[in-house]
């Protein structure tokens, strides 16, 4: 066994344990140095996010290394070993590779398909490279993981649709208006979800934001935060014709926006499309408004349905993604398995002998004219040159593998000779 991945994630460990274990994300220097201090550890990478803490290492002696890595984690968490043992998972070789590929492709995330994890993996890798903690194997492994993640993103719809209510609202707005540049939104009432949706919309290029609140002071306060304009609550019918998207989330018991108001607004805005988002319970916008042509009304349940449907789609897409991961693991494994001393020597010899054979064949037209004895002498000469050339590299390779870490040499030979 040469690759070990040890760690815990949101599925195996509660947040109380994960937060105690957060391995210093500052620059990770001390942790990486400590890990590299373990004699069995050759290369190492630490991935620490709010949902997972994982240590990925190339090791010399598998089981001994696993024990040392566990000790390291117990020390970091300052926790009882028995308690931690339940939360920890240990993956070896192929399973470790598969796990890393799944993590990078966001298949192991709390919200499957979320894009941040890819950046976090890159960041963890950059930190490990900065501290010279990676080598031939981890470099290749992480790059392969990133490539797999990209394939998953482009070939499946796993990250395709919104799985949060506020983002679903943004996607709908794009589906209705096309671009959101130059559009105006109106926030009626305050609330975490509506503010989040407004922030998303602003990031998509929405030009102007109007904020209405029963308490005008609160509206002014929010307007400042969003760099928008406050609107008095009783002026709603006047501003409605100016806006393209309305997000309502007041605590009012009745309808704040009536169908008549919407119909009048639509006439004044010459039927330009209007998107109404009602995330208040009880509802703020009269459902009859949604019946009007060119008005699209979504309430919190509709948005939740969109989100649920998207979640289901993601699950289906995740199946495809698992297939891609399996393929890529097999590709990596083929490379990894060839990274041993004996197969490398066999391949190197094979390649050289092949060259000699081909060159002799190419010269057959004049070699054929020579007497049998001379011809076999020339063949012997060629073979002996190859043997002499290969002697030192092969001896060196064997020696290095006996004494210390053979992997960099094997990898270099394979690369130099294109094996």
């Amino acid at each position, binding site marked *: 066994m040469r690759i070990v991945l040890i760690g815990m994630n949101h599925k195996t460990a509660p947040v109380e344990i994960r937060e105690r274990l957060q391995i210093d994300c500052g620059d990770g220097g001390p942790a990486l140095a400590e890990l590299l201090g373990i004699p069995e550890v050759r290369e190492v990478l630490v991935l620490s996010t709010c949902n997972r803490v994982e240590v990925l290492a190339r090791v010399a002696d598998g089981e001994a290394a696993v024990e040392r890595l566990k000790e390291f984690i117990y020390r970091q968490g300052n926790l009882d070993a028995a308690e931690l043992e339940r939360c920890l998972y240990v993956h070896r070789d192929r399973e470790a590779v598969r796990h890393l590929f799944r993590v990078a492709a966001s298949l192991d995330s709390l919200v499957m398909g979320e894009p941040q994890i890819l950046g976090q993996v890159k960041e963890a890798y950059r930190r490990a490279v900065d501290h010279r903690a990676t080598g031939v194997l981890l470099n290749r492994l992480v790059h392969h993981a990133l490539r797999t993640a990209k394939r998953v993103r482009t070939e499946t719809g796993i990250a395709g649709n919104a799985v949060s209510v506020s983002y679903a609202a943004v*996607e*709908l707005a794009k*589906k209705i208006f*096309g671009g959101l540049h130059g559009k105006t939104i109106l926030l009626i009432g305050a609330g975490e979800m509506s503010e989040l949706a407004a922030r998303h919309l602003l990031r998509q290029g929405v030009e102007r934001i109007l904020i209405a609140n029963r308490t005008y002071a609160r509206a002014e306060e929010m307007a400042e935060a969003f760099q928008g304009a406050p609107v008095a609550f009783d002026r709603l019918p006047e501003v409605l014709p100016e806006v393209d998207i309305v997000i309502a989330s007041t605590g009012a018991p009745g309808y704040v926006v009536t169908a008549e108001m919407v119909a009048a607004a639509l006439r004044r805005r010459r039927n*330009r499309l209007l998107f109404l988002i009602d995330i208040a319970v009880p509802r703020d916008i009269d459902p009859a408004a949604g019946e009007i*042509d060119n008005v699209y009304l979504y309430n919190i349940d509709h948005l939740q349905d969109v989100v649920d449907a998207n979640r289901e789609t993601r699950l289906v897409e995740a199946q495809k993604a698992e297939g891609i991961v399996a393929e890529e693991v097999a590709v990596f494994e083929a490379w990894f398995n060839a990274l041993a001393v004996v197969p490398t020597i066999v391949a190197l010899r094979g390649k050289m002998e092949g060259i000699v054979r081909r060159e002799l064949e190419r010269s057959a037209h004049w070699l054929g004219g020579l007497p049998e004895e001379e011809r076999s002498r020339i063949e012997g000469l060629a073979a002996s040159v190859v043997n002499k050339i290969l002697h030192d590299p092969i001896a060196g390779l064997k020696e290095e593998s006996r004494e210390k870490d053979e992997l960099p040499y094997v990898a270099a030979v394979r690369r130099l000779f294109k094996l």
Partner: protein
Amino acid sequence: MTGITLFKTALAVYFASACIYGASLWGKRVFPARIAAGLMFAALVVHTFSAVARWFPAGETPTIGLHDALSLFAWVMAAAYLTLQLKTKTRVLGAFVSPVICLFMVVASVGLGGAVNAPAMLRGSLVTAHVILSVAGEALFAVASCAGLMYLIQDGLIRRKKAGGMSRLLPPLGDLDRINHLCLLWGVPLLTLGGLAGSLWARIVWGSHWQWDPKQVWTLLAWGCYAFLLHQRLAIGWRGRTAARWSLALFVLLLVLLMAGLPFFGTLHRFV
């Protein structure tokens, strides 16, 4: 001869493009639609060359027969759609536009290789202008009606809160509505000019602007309807669903009238 080969090649590539657009709808993926758009552009280029190859040897102002008119119709639709696609995110709209293009190309290929020269009555730059302008205007209305159909589908999906797979694939409503707007805005003046050119020529060869010929009546009806629609759109704000419904309904109505009516009436206004 080169012209015929090129025309057939263009038809084949349009057809391939339509098939791939269909696959895009079927598989609910945008990627094939991108390839299809590339193919449509290639077909348009070949199509252009085929027209050049047909007209160039004819020397002087060529006259336009049925084949050329239908071929021009397809050409304008493809060119207009590809231009609009540059400005809007409407890749999948091609799935509705390309079959119509194919249909016109197939019908046009019936008259393939026919004489370029026509009777003296139909020769002259005024006739050429009349045909080109009218056909271009009507082709733009065809694009508007394709966009209208897609608008209604997308509108229905969003209204019924089915914002999943299919809705994600179809273009945004705003972009489809803009296509309607642009097509009407360009189509109506083109058809107006085409009609004027035609009536001037009629005055010259028939002695009067108006003959109560079925095709003349039909054209005037079409012109009136679309001018009305454009007016409503600009003045009263018939946008979105209303505009889409009207564009689609008018196009279907005019097509039905043309198909059903023409065989029953003798017409002076025959193509070559």
